[in-house]
């Protein structure tokens, strides 16, 4: 079947989609967007996290047909073009780099999207910097086998502080 939807603001069409196929498969194998990772295909690891109509979901558990006409935002869509037209890493991505929150990087795309969602609901919504319990809760469905999570927490705190405008930067 053919599925038409929007990814990162652009209309896309995928052809020959098997009706039981996941959104993750369509993104990676049919649309050339391998940012979202496939590590478990059963919702356990969060490395495939994307926004679907503004709400985060595991792309491996969404049937492609369920996305028809809807809008998806992947990790590739987090970076935004600045005033000069150059695409720059989003604050949360910068913070992951600076804090050393990336080792093998497999979990990173999912964590970035889920962390972005947390910041959208907190720092960017004028609710200030989320506390550690809130960060841990938000990221509870994202597994990382490398970092031990401490640097990831540092990165999220740093990004949140910057987005809330409470610091000028520097690793937390």
């Amino acid at each position, binding site marked *: 079947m053919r599925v038409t939807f929007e990814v990162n603001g652009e209309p896309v069409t995928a052809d020959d989609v098997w009706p*039981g196929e996941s959104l993750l498969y369509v993104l990676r194998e049919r649309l050339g967007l391998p940012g979202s990772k496939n590590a478990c*295909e*059963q919702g356990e690891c969060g490395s495939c996290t994307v926004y679907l109509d503004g*709400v985060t*979901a595991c792309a491996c558990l969404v*049937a492609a047909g369920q996305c028809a006409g809807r809008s998806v935002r992947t990790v590739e869509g987090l970076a935004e073009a600045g005033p000069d037209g150059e695409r720059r890493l989003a604050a949360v991505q910068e913070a992951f780099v600076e804090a050393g929150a990336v080792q093998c990087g497999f979990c990173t795309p999912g964590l970035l999207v889920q962390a972005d969602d947390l910041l959208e609901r907190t720092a960017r919504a004028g609710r200030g910097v989320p506390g550690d319990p809130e960060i841990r*809760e938000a990221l509870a469905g994202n597994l990382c086998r490398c970092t031990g999570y401490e640097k990831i927490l540092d990165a999220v705190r740093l990004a949140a502080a910057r987005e809330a405008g409470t610091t000028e930067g520097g690793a937390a």
Partner: protein
Amino acid sequence: MDFLSPSTWEEALAAKSEHPDAVPIMGGTDVMVELNFDRRRPPALLDLTRVPELTAWGPDGPHLRLGAGVCYTDVIAHLGDRAPALAQASRSVASPQIRNRGTVGGNLGGASPAGDAHPPLLATGAEVELASVRGVRRVPIREFYVGFRQTARRPDELIAAVLLPAPRGPQAFSKIGPRNAMVISVASFALALDGDARTVGTGIGSAGPTPLRAPDAERFLAERFDWDGGTPPAPADVHKFGELVAEAARPIDDVRGSAAYRRRSLAVMARRALAWTATDYREGTARCA
């Protein structure tokens, strides 16, 4: 394989009647795992995510009507007052991403004995609304689970909604598992006190072929509880209540835990739930007096 995508409830019921083998899919958090791992190859998927009625909730006579497609995130955000035990159970489900998609109707559709929605629905005496082109019927939750992953739903029926009585007393849910998130329960328990009818409701999860109640424990506590003042139950009664809950379970040994551990943890959870609800009841009575 077909992908059926009705956009109204009538179309959905017609599609299910025409294709009784079609597998409904809402959040997909159970269905997609089965498809991804080749455990299931249904002739068709029936996508229900475009049917607006399913994601709505609101009062229905004395009940709260919760559309089958309401996700856990919405139950937590909006229904904590009207469905306390269900909201508490919803908070314990999986991860934010799964709670954004997973639904109470999907939990009922799969009817895993480990599903976290079941104990609260049993304890509060909910009803399940089933619909088909032939009509609509409401099945008391106690008659809904008929065997291991088997329910009273007929092949041409869809789950439309869950009807929850307004809470008439404190409720509690608890669950045992290896971590605080992303955990299919080893055992779970829900308790609801009904201060008007002076009855007790219980629900047990992950400790039998179906979700279960503990009727002896319910009767025992209904007789012993101080419904006027809510004084803390005597330690012997608390203990007895825990034992009766554990005895009602029919657990097996499996990868998540042994039968003996499940019974033991159920007794502990039942005693704790009783302590929490008795305190809430006492404080509620004090406020009303």
